[in-house]
């Protein structure tokens, strides 16, 4: 009994101490935050002589190979920037962390990174970026490099490097009708990964098909399905006159190979992550050279536009033996986008995470020298900054395996509405 009283008293005492320590008044509420050295207000990740940006990427999971290329290119880019005097008179440091495609790791790494970075240069991967995006939005932290899925448009802190998969697919349907002789009433197969990438592509293709009087034959797959025989047979049976593939290189190799062996000679269209130049040396190579078209937001490795040239020169100096692919111009473009936003924040005198997002949303006419198709307008968060895409063909003699054909914007790509 006495023991019980003592315990109760002890607990009550603890509660009183805890309550006495409580406060709901913010002592900094009227203050002006941390005082910078000069007129520029400095936020998280900014000191008097350095800016830290974060990269949450996948260096040990399924996308390790491409992610390593992007890390190398991004680091080379900022080394170059630092050599030229840095951003806002500060050196830019890149903090790279590996989430291994695990959302739990991505969320905890984000928590440790967020208070110490000005912006997130990259959060790679569908489920990982889906987990981090809402957290970053709540913290008003800039987030780039998460792919091109249309559902990212609802976050005003996310900067998409180009247009969405849905607009790419809608443009692909326009291109099939206008340039490749697909006629009204024809069928187009869409083989897609279930998830933000594939479903977005399918939505764009379905919209455009309705506008142009085509029929879509959807075939849902998962990243684990690498044998496309069943899908190829179904498409042959349905009489598809073209195929859009929103998947990865193993699926492209299988699908192109099986279609060729079944004597189905139709255009195969993919997005940036669909293609890998190593495929051209595989048994599917001849079929790809004949029929593969890439519809991408960023320029292919071989483009001779000045922006892409700069990106490629930088990469080949930094990683002479590195893999050549779409990641190089993409990483360079993403770094350019963030650097532009940071410079804007600096000019506005507000070098804080919020300031970077604000500056990014004021960008209305940014030209990246051919890395992306047109000049970019980020003022409306609900719309992609452009709707024009690059159309490339597979080519064995070109570095990176894709030869740039033209830029293209069709009526469906222009008219596609986001839900």
């Amino acid at each position, binding site marked *: 009994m006495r023991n019980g009283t003592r315990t109760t008293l002890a607990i009550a005492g603890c509660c009183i101490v*805890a309550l006495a*320590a*409580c*406060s*709901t*008044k*913010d002592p900094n*509420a009227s203050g002006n935050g941390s005082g910078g050295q000069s007129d520029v207000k400095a936020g998280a990740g900014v000191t008097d002589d350095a800016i830290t940006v974060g990269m949450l990427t996948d*260096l*040990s*999971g399924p996308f*390790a190979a491409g*992610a*390593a290329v992007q*890390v190398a290119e991004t680091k080379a880019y900022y080394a170059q920037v630092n050599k030229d005097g840095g951003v806002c008179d500060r050196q830019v440091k890149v903090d*790279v*962390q*590996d*989430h*291994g495609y*695990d*959302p*739990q*790791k991505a*969320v*905890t*790494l984000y*928590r*440790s990174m*967020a*208070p110490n970075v000005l912006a997130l240069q990259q959060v790679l991967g*569908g*489920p990982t970026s*889906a*987990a981090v995006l*809402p*957290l970053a939005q*709540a913290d008003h932290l800039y987030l780039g490099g998460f792919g091109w899925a249309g*559902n990212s448009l609802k976050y005003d802190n996310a900067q998409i490097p180009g247009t969405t998969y849905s607009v790419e697919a809608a443009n692909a349907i326009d291109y099939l009708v206008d340039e490749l002789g697909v006629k009204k009433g024809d069928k187009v197969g869409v083989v897609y990964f*279930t*998830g*933000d990438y594939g*479903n977005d592509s399918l939505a764009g293709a379905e919209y455009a098909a309705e506008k142009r009087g085509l029929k879509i034959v959807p075939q849902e797959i998962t990243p684990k399905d690498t044998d496309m025989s069943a899908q190829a047979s179904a498409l042959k049976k349905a009489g598809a006159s073209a195929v859009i593939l929103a998947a990865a290189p193993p699926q492209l190799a299988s699908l192109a190979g099986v279609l060729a062996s079944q004597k189905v000679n139709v255009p195969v269209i993919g997005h940036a992550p669909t293609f890998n130049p190593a495929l051209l040396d595989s048994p599917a190579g001849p079929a790809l050279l004949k029929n593969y078209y890439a519809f991408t937001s960023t320029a292919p490795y071989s483009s001779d536009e000045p922006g892409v040239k700069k990106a490629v020169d930088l990469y080949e100096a930094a990683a002479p033996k590195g893999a050549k692919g779409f990641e190089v111009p993409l990483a360079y473009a993403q770094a350019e986008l963030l650097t532009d936003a940071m410079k804007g924040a600096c000019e506005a005198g507000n070098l804080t995470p919020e300031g970077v997002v604000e500056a990014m949303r004021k960008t209305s006419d940014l030209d990246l020298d051919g890395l992306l198709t047109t000049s970019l307008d980020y003022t409306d968060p609900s719309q992609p900054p452009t709707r024009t895409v690059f159309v490339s063909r597979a080519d064995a003699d070109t570095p990176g395996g894709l030869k740039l054909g033209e830029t293209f914007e069709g009526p469906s790509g222009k008219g596609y509405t986001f839900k």
Partner: protein
Amino acid sequence: MSDLIRRGPMVLGLLVALALPLLLDDFWLQTGLFAMASVVGAIGLTLLVGVAGQLSLGHAFFAALGAYTYAWTVGDPAGQEAGLGLPPLVALVLAGVVSAVVGGLFSPISGRLRGIYLGLATIGLVFLARHLMVNLEALTGGFNGRTVEPFSVPGFSFSNAAPDYLAVAGVQFEGLHRLWYLFLGIAVLSAWLGRNLRAGRTGRALANVRDSEVAAAAMGVNVARAKATAFVISSAYAGIAGALMALAYGRIAPDLFGIQLSIDFLVMIVLGGLGSIAGATAGAVFVVALPLVLAQYSSQLPFLAAPGSGGLDAATLARLLYGAAIIAVLLFLRGGLAGAASRIRHRRSAHQRGTGGPPLVPTPSPDPSGATEPPPSQPAVSTRSEEKS
């Protein structure tokens, strides 16, 4: 007095856990939230596998059920995905109840199967969950998942808002700090309930069924009902754990609740010692925190390669340590961490008696309260070869 000595470490641990949010940064708080959510799930699984001897690989299914039930119940009815807009407290209770009910519906199957066959049947649940989560888009948001409303009670929200600013002893208490106390409260409550359950009549009946169904039936235990009870309780724990995970993430997607989660839960309870509540707690903290901490501090460890450079990186090291820990426990630590701890205690008290001093502590081995963890007897699902150690 003996009571105080026995409970001392536990009370001390609790006080430390209460004080930690004053010291830790966001990374450790987030890690702690994931760990505490897993503690609840692991306690549920150790009751099922360790005490009742039913192997289940379907824990991820019930966790997913709890997580989505919570998200759906608190969800905004006008939002993108369906929701009821009910108070979060109701949702948390409902997460446990719905999982328990579904566990009860599954019990006719679980009651007929044993050992590895039950394990296989429960794996099926995980694949079923995956299919439902991806395809019931109106409820689950499909592959991309849905956001989870923060927990709140009237007048106080466990998020960064309402009250917008709250400080204790000069440390600003944001969403993570506030959630820490919610999670700690639920974890302690589930440990206490689990311990009482195991030590009580139900737990003894379950252990009896595990050791011999015939003997249990002869003693008047209703075997079918005991098995169903174990499954229902364990499912309720998993449902609450899933709701806590949903709160810790802030957004849930099908990828979080794969077969890997089920296996992680099993690893937690095997490492900790089957049937032990304290062991499940320790195992859960180890399994959850190890990869996160290694990933976070990999750059400070000199022998680790930078991620992606092809050498031994943090993610690989975490997997190796896992494997090594499981093998070491199976080979050398009968009864896992809990068994080892209890043996050390025994040895120390025996040593004290041996030196001639008066026994300060009553012989703890036949302790009926179950407060000190007795070495858990090996249930049917484990390998018999450990007995010789």
